[in-house]
């Protein structure tokens, strides 16, 4: 038992280390580009520097995403391997760095240095374009999430779209084009079969996914991430997974049908969440729906022929998609950046404020107070903290699913989507519409 606690502790330490690396680096860079440098420029050159300052501030989301995606993938791959090791009673990577903390960095370096091979008879243009098309949407897709993640921080407000949800859904349907393209252009039967499977799977599971998201949007009454997250402020009962506040509206004197409707609505929303998790797993090709790259049947599916940096890009995009899907779920269902209990959030913020005062109180003689305040805003940090906890919890849950469930057969997969999930999603859509009015 001690040993087990030891292993879990090692995983926790690793996670802490990597999260510090990722979010420290991202936040530090975006802060220095978005706040520090513009301030310096404006103080140096006055009005004429305004253009440069604005340009730098506009660049912040791009730089943040470009930094975040590879670092995050490094952590997610490592975490997944360690978690799988934990679940299957093994040790996992433990050679590079302390407890194997930098194993994925070494792997990434290896992939970058490897030779790229193009199979004979491949359609060179499509073959090269496929990883790019697969990868680009994941970069574009992270952007509007930034505003939701950072609680609409002024640096990331420009990327907050009024139709953010629809935008993500549209963008996340693009990668399948890259998969089909790559699978076809590889001039390999396994790749082609993997690509066709992937296309069929993506089109089938897109429908229940869209329906479940539409239902949540209906419940929330908006397509804006920040607003959806804000609507779930308060406590666990306000989260969309429990009916988006239907339960809190009930009083002692509310009629019985209102209570019943609220309870039913909560049940429907839990089902919706389960539906979303299933469809999202299928959308990002995770087990048990990883038929496009089923390694025991199709070698490695659509990316059989890819090597070196192109394979690395496929890999990067896959894990980034998983992260996007998890963050999306955290914002849509699990209350975004709000703590599960009302007191907890305030406690977080005040605790952080106290910590800051204790640490940087000594700095005030150097007039660094405003810099520190703009660097670490306790409200934002608490928001980011909660959303990170929720998203990574979902990522870990995906690892648990991967460790447990076997792969489906292709006909089972299609049956499951068209005969079970689509009707369920439609029923839930109608049910939620009516129940929302009844509450």
């Amino acid at each position: 038992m001690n040993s087990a606690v030891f292993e879990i502790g090692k995983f926790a330490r690793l996670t802490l280390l990597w999260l510090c690396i990722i979010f420290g680096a991202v936040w530090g860079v975006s802060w220095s580009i978005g706040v520090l440098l513009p301030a310096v420029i404006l103080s140096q050159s006055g009005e004429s520097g305004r253009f440069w300052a604005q340009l730098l501030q506009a660049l912040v989301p791009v730089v943040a995403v470009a930094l975040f995606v590879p670092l995050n993938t490094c952590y997610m791959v490592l975490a997944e391997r360690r978690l799988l090791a934990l679940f299957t009673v093994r040790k996992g990577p433990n050679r590079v760095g302390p407890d194997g903390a930098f194993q994925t960095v070494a792997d990434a370096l290896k992939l970058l240095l490897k030779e790229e091979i193009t199979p004979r008879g491949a359609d060179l243009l499509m073959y090269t374009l496929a990883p790019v098309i697969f990868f680009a949407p994941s970069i574009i897709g992270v952007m509007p999430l930034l505003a939701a993640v950072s609680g609409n921080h002024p640096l990331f407000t420009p990327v907050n779209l009024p139709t953010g949800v629809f935008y993500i859904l549209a963008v996340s349907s693009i990668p399948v084009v890259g998969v089909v393209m790559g699978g076809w252009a590889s001039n390999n039967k396994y790749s082609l079969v993997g690509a066709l499977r992937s296309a069929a799977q993506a089109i089938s599971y897109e429908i229940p996914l869209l329906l479940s998201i539409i239902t949540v949007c209906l419940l929330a009454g908006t397509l804006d991430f920040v607003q959806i997250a804000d609507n779930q402020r308060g406590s666990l009962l306000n989260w969309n997974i429990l009916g988006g506040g239907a339960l809190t509206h009930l009083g002692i004197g509310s009629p019985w049908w209102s209570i019943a409707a609220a309870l039913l609505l909560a049940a429907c929303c839990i089902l919706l969440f389960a539906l979303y998790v299933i469809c999202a797993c299928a959308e990002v090709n995770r087990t048990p729906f990883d038929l496009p790259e089923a390694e025991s049947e199709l070698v490695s599916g659509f990316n059989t022929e890819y090597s070196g940096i192109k394979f690395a890009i496929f890999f990067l995009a896959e894990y980034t998609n998983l992260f996007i899907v998890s963050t999306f779920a955290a914002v849509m269902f699990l209350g975004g950046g709000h703590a599960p209990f009302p007191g907890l959030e305030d406690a977080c913020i005040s605790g952080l404020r106290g910590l800051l005062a204790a640490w940087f109180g000594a700095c005030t003689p150097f007039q660094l107070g405003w810099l520190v305040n703009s660097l670490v805003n306790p409200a934002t940090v608490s928001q980011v903290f909660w959303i990170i906890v929720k998203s990574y919890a979902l990522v870990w849950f995906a690892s648990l699913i991967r460790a447990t469930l076997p792969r489906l057969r292709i006909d089972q997969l299609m049956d499951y989507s068209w005969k079970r999930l689509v009707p369920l999603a439609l029923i839930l859509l109608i049910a939620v519409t009516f129940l929302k009015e009844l509450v």
Partner: protein
Amino acid sequence: MESLNLLTALAHVNVEQGFFYVLAAIAIPLAYGVVFDRNVIRSGFLLIGVFATIAGLFFLLQAQFLGLSQILIYGVGITLVIVIALMLTNARQETGMNPALPANVGLASFVSVLVFTTIYLSLRSAEDWPLKNESSLSLPPNIEMIGKHLMTYYALPFEFASILLLAALVGAVMLSKAEPASLANAGDEAEQAVDGTDRV
């Protein structure tokens, strides 16, 4: 300082116009590729590119909802279906062929040039476009506008569209399920048998 002035000057150039020409310069070669590429599957992928650039044009025209649905429905849905249909119908067999029917080339070029010339000349001669110059800032979000229209004034066409889609879906299923009746029944039975064993 001089470079700075240049940059501010650049910032004042009509960005919309620049983007438009860039998108047009991408869309036209891709459209040619769709028509002329010898490999049909590749022209299917090029079609995705055309649709993506058209979605870009919609964004330029501030039709975000339409641009996104263009990507979602056209760019991915329809084109993938086309590509899969191509892969199902032995495309290799047609790869080496000249994509064009030589007999029709002259006629087709004449007709297409004629169509373009007619449209262009009519555009050029038109003087009285009923343009309206509301400032785009005061407009309601267009997704809201579209939703309002679809649910009120255009509700009936909307319903008709859904019926059309349903009919098309059923028709497509019937058309592509072209096996003889006895064979199809046998297949069903086999499937049921498989299902039964699975449940046990």
